[in-house]
């Protein structure tokens, strides 16, 4: 006889009860494994999606709305030896005219064969009028190979869309292409540079066709690179290679000869230095930019590279007037002394003969310039400045140079003034015949000249302060100048920086929403129940072996030895339960993954989650399962071993000494009454003071009520046991006394059920629904009616006369009824809960803080102490430092998507390549801005002056029946690909994620409570076993078995009901805000259903053991006694 034999004899002999314990261990381990493996699977799937969406691309260069030469890819490839491909990427609307189907937001990418190499596709790249489309586009538009589709894209051009005087004409271009290939996800179909698991709608066409269509022939806005083996770019690396080979054109700079009068030039022409046609000035060289205006940094770089160069700023003025006469729409050049060859004072103006004659002015005469200052969304403010004529110059002198006028799209190539297409309103009636003649003779040759500093000051142009630089040089020197200039410039300043997109994607996936933790917390109750079940089953078993334990003690085994022997059994049982538990966990995980890909799709927004099991995770789950179970079993053993040996030997349980609990009565009484009182006072206070939105306090009050209720039930049972009576005990008296005698167990069951019900009802009732709440300005909708997003930008302020006219809003009768709040959006990652990846640069939205402040729109969860709590929005208008502004985001985004806190800083790169720091100054309470960082629109445009029209807008107005207004707006802005949703629907889409989590919790929580009711069944079994003699006495005294059955049923149904009622009442107190608010619809049916199921399941678990107990012959119990 040795311990091993004793161990295995015991295990074998008690195999049946141990199988039950193992089942408990198995359930808890399975749930734990399932939850942890979900985490592994989601993480793995996201990392896999990163690989699928990027192919073997490791790096990407995407300079926003700037363009670089397509040859750059070949040059970088030549230096590094790694693959690189140019592409053009832009948003578009895709239409299948045959079936009248459209997608408003597709991603069109112009590619060549090199790009397809990143997916190792044998398929030839799309040629002209051909398209490769992703499977989801094919499905949505009902397209098959050979079908045609229409693409409408924003004609981007190289100039910023909102630049002063840029064309007003329709900024879109259409392509009709034929589908040649439908790409699956892993065949480039899911291509996206954004760390997001949702699949974009992808359409790939020929890069050449797209470039020509967009009028950017030879240029690209995306360059991807990476080795097929490991996605790296070989030495010297992509950014160094870029520095080695980039050219002025990649920064949008062009060198050419200035052109004399009568010889129009176009920006974008290849360098014309040394051009033998003799059109240009062979000794003069001019630097111009695609972006029409040089920003300060680039301008200074040119001045540093070519000291003493002539700096020029040419602007269109609305009028030049003097003494009642006026000349409309003329160009005026502001230039430095190097160009003017004289120093002009701040009020000096030099005019040409034509203008002097037209206005009848001469030196010393006053002149007034009237001009527009450009605001956002083509908003214009007319300003004026007064000058004094310093000199009059001939029309055809050195300064009279039509090349001084920048190449404003829509103007430069116009045949006459009436053909001008400018972003500024031109009153054609004001244009006289002689003005037309001047245009014919001299084109945009400036009629007047002022000092450079004066021009920069009065026109205050956020796009830049120069339109050209000129200098004298020869061909060989020019190359040196170009080299010097490129040394002065940094590619990053033009957005030309490679991002390690694959690594970023992997990092974003690795730090993604931890579904392991999430499911652990969601499965908490089921695990808690399973562990409790294990404890109960083991306790039941341990009690049957109480005499054995006592005997071992009596035979001289020390407590430690007994503990060791029994724990060894527990360890083996735990392991025996945990190992199949891990396997069951994997099966359970399969169900969860299936649920995530289908039923709970809203939680992950992809159906690409695949199961992935890490051996370490399985080991952790198994060891945790063993340890948890062992812990509870050891706890049971320790408790049992505390009993006196003499008592244990008899297999008896310690007799409850009622009056030994006097202090306990006081404690439970105090706890119960005080908790309930505080809870009721809190509830009353919250209702009286109208703080019905203070969910946290209500929940606390509910939880306190629950704790108090449990304490009071305990007190009641204690008092029942202490009460003495001379009366014959009634049925209910007997039932209550029975429950009170074993009140430890009774309270365990009641508490478990109450907690379970509380959790289930609270979560069920907190499912977010929006009925009636959305009109409140304080709500997450801000009280706005609609949210609109458009693929092609809306260039005008839709509340302005120009905007109303441009989009035909007048005809719809909108003005006065509908207000548009247009917002600027800077591209970034979606940081909403719809994206599982952890993002670092969320999309930025420029909003009007003043308006939001006036409306007192939205609510905040947290604010920096420096923010005025009464007017938080105004804080956004503060420029905290030259490179620091404030931003707000949804608190959930700050905490979960960004993993940050209030006061933390996000770093972006502004348009000029400088760092822009955004301090998170406040957390919004669940708003429609989820996924974005909101900043002041004015400040945003300061850092991103080229930001075009609006892509996002909020719409306020009279709600029309159904979605009439939304559909009317979608029709009006059909060409912009506008999609309009109600703000409450948008909020509901975000809430759907949370609601899905709640659904999972409810399901798993409900399952947990049901397992808890199995525990109730065990309690009954245990109870019946111990009370065999008691039942036998009843029989001996002449009671029928039916009476015993009723007594058992009543006693345990009372526990069940008490638990359910306690949980329900406390939960109802906790969700009082939802109950009293018209904004919430408490899913009463759902909650009632769950509670009913729990109740019926509980009754079932009472019925079976009770019925089985009375079926047996009870009288031997009496003999044992």
């Amino acid at each position: 006889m040795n311990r091993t034999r004793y161990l295995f004899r015991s295990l074998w002999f008690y195999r049946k009860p141990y199988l039950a314990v193992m089942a408990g261990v198995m359930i808890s381990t399975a749930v734990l494994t399932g939850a942890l493996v979900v985490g592994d699977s989601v993480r793995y799937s996201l990392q896999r999606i990163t690989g699928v969406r990027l192919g073997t691309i490791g790096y990407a260069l995407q300079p926003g709305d700037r363009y670089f030469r397509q040859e750059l890819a070949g040059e970088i490839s030549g230096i590094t030896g790694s693959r690189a491909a140019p592409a053009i990427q832009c948003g578009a609307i895709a239409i299948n005219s045959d079936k009248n189907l459209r997608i408003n937001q597709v991603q069109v990418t112009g590619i060549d064969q090199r790009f397809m190499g990143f997916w190792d596709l044998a398929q030839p790249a799309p040629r002209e009028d051909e398209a490769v489309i992703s499977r989801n586009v094919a499905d949505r538009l009902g397209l098959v190979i050979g079908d045609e589709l229409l693409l409408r894209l924003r004609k981007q051009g190289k100039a910023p869309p909102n630049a002063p005087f840029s064309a007003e004409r329709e900024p879109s271009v259409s392509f009709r292409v034929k589908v040649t290939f439908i790409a699956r996800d892993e065949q480039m179909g899911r291509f996206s540079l954004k760390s997001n698991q949702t699949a974009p709608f992808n359409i790939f066409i020929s890069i050449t066709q797209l470039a020509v269509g967009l009028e950017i022939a030879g240029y690209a806005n995306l360059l991807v690179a990476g080795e097929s083996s490991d996605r790296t770019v070989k030495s010297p690396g992509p950014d160094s290679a870029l520095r080695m080979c980039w050219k002025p054109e990649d920064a949008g700079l062009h060198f050419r000869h200035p052109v004399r009068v009568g010889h129009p030039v176009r920006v974008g022409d290849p360098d014309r230095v040394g051009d033998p046609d003799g059109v240009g000035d062979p000794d003069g060289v001019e630097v111009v930019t695609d972006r029409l205006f040089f920003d300060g940094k680039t301008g200074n770089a040119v001045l540093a590279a070519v000291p003493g160069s002539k700096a020029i700023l040419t602007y269109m003025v609305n009028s030049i007037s003097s003494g009642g006469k006026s000349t409309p729409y003329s160009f005026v050049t502001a230039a430095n002394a190097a160009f003017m060859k004289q120093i002009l004072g701040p009020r000096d103006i030099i005019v040409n003969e034509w203008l002097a004659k037209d206005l009848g002015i001469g030196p010393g005469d006053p002149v007034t310039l009237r001009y527009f200052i450009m605001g956002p969304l083509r908003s214009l403010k007319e300003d004026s400045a007064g000058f004094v004529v310093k000199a009059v110059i001939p029309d055809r002198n050195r300064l009279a140079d039509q090349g001084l006028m920048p190449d404003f799209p829509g103007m430069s190539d116009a045949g006459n003034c009436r053909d001008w297409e400018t972003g500024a309103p031109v009153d054609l009636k004001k244009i006289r015949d002689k003005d037309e003649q001047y245009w014919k003779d001299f084109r945009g040759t400036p009629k007047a000249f002022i000092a450079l500093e004066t021009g920069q000051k009065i026109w205050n142009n956020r796009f830049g302060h120069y339109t050209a630089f000129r200098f004298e040089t020869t061909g060989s020197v020019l190359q040196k100048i170009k080299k010097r200039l490129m040394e002065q410039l940094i590619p990053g300043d033009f957005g030309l920086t490679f991002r390690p997109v694959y690594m970023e994607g992997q990092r974003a996936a690795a730090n993604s929403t931890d579904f392991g933790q999430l499911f652990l917390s969601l499965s908490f109750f089921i695990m808690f129940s399973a562990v409790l079940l294990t404890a109960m089953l083991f306790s039941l078993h341990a009690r049957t072996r109480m005499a054995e334990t006592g005997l071992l003690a009596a035979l001289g085994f020390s407590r430690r030895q007994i503990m060791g022997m029994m724990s060894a059994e527990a360890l083996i049982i735990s392991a025996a339960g945990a190992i199949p538990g891990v396997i069951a966990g994997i099966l359970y995980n399969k169900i969860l993954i299936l649920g995530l890909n289908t039923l709970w799709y809203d939680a992950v927004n992809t159906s690409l989650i695949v199961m992935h099991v890490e051996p370490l995770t399985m080991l952790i789950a198994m060891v945790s399962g063993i340890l948890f179970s062992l812990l509870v079993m050891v706890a049971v053993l320790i408790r049992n071993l505390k009993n006196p040996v003499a008592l244990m030997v008899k297999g008896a349980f310690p007799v409850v000494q009622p009056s030994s609990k006097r202090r306990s009565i006081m404690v439970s009484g105090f706890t119960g009454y005080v908790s309930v009182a505080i809870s009721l006072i809190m509830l009353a206070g919250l209702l009286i003071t109208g703080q019905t939105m203070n969910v946290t306090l209500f929940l606390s009050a509910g939880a306190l009520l629950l704790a108090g209720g449990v304490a009071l039930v305990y007190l009641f049972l204690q008092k029942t046991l202490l009460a003495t009576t001379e009366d014959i005990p009634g049925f209910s008296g007997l039932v209550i006394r029975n429950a009170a005698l074993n009140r430890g167990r009774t309270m365990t069951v009641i508490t478990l059920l109450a907690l379970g019900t509380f959790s289930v009802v609270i979560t069920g009732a907190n499912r977010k629904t929006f009925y009636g709440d959305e009109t409140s300005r304080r709500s997450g909708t801000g009280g706005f009616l609609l949210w609109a997003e458009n693929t092609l930008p809306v260039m005008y302020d839709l509340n302005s006369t120009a905007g109303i006219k441009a989009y035909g809003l007048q005809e719809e009768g909108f003005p006065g009824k509908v207000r548009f709040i247009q917002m600027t959006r800077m591209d970034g990652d979606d940081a909403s809960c719809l994206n599982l990846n952890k993002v670092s640069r969320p999309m930025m939205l420029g909003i009007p803080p003043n308006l939001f402040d006036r409306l007192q729109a939205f609510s905040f969860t947290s604010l920096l102490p420096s923010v005025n709590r009464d007017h938080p929005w105004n804080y956004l208008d503060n420029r905290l430092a030259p490179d620091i502004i404030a931003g707000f985001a949804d608190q959930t985004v700050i905490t979960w998507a960004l993993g940050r806190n209030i006061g933390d800083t996000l770093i972006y790169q502004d348009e000029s390549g400088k760092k822009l720091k955004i301090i998170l100054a406040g957390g919004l309470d669940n708003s429609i801005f989820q996924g974005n960082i909101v900043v002041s629109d004015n400040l945003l445009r300061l850092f991103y002056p080229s930001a075009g029209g609006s892509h996002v807008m909020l719409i306020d107005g009279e709600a029309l029946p159904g979605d009439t207004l939304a559909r009317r707006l979608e029709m009006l802005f059909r060409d912009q690909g506008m999609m309009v949703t109600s703000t409450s629907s948008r909020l509901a889409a975000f809430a759907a994620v949370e609601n899905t989590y709640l659904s999972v919790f409810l399901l798993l929580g409900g399952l947990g409570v049901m397992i808890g009711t199995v525990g109730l069944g065990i309690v009954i079994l245990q109870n019946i076993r111990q009370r065999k003699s008691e039942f036998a006495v009843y029989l001996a005294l002449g009671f029928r078995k039916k009476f015993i059955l009723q007594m058992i049923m009543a006693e345990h149904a009372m526990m069940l009901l008490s638990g359910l009622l306690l949980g329900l009442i406390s939960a109802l107190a906790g969700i009082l805000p939802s109950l009293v608010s018209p904004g919430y619809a408490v899913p009463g049916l759902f909650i009632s259903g769950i509670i009913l199921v729990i109740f019926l399941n509980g009754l079932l678990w009472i019925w079976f053991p009770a019925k089985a107990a009375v079926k047996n012959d009870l009288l031997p119990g009496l003999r044992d006694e």
Partner: protein
Amino acid sequence: MLAELKNVTRYYQQEGVTTRNLIIDQVSLGIEENESLAVIGPSGSGKSTLLNILGSLDKPSSGKVVLDGAEVDLLDEKELAAIRNRFIGFVFQQHHLLPQLTLIENVLLPVLPVKDKAKQREATDRAHNLIERVGLKTLVHRRPAHLSVGECQRAAVVRALVNQPRLLLADEPTGSLDSEHAMQLAQLLGELNREQNLAVVVVTHSMEVASYMGKIYRITSEKLQLTEKR
């Protein structure tokens, strides 16, 4: 003196209640080597309490218990376990044979805490001899479920003796047996007292069983009185 109770009192008192439920009061008892004695008394008189205190399974409310010259109160849990393992043998009213073990395994259960291999071997030999002595030789590999109550109780006696204790404490050992088996067991205890150089204390309410012992004590009104000495 092998074991001694000095002015031992045991009462139970409910918290917050002044009255005490006195079980035994100022009981003193000395047990010499090879002595055999019986404690008789009606149910609830405190016989078992007295035996539990003597066997260190319970603690007195006041008074001293000395076992093998050591005061029980001063022993730690490990020393107490060692005393119970080697100095005392217990026989209970129920045999408490473990259902998962065979007869021989049950008998050898007290040997488990013994670490000395030689002693373990000795104990095993002794177990077989004792089993033979009590007439259970053919049943050693049977489980308790396949033994009669009398056989189980005899096995329980062997289990109590396997470590050669010097004091055998039997709490109503014949309580679950019929009169024939009861007398056989009582006789066995008497013989073992003489053969094994063993002091035996038997708690019983049966005068017939008590008559096999050298002295008979009676508990009345919480006091222990010597009523008969042979």
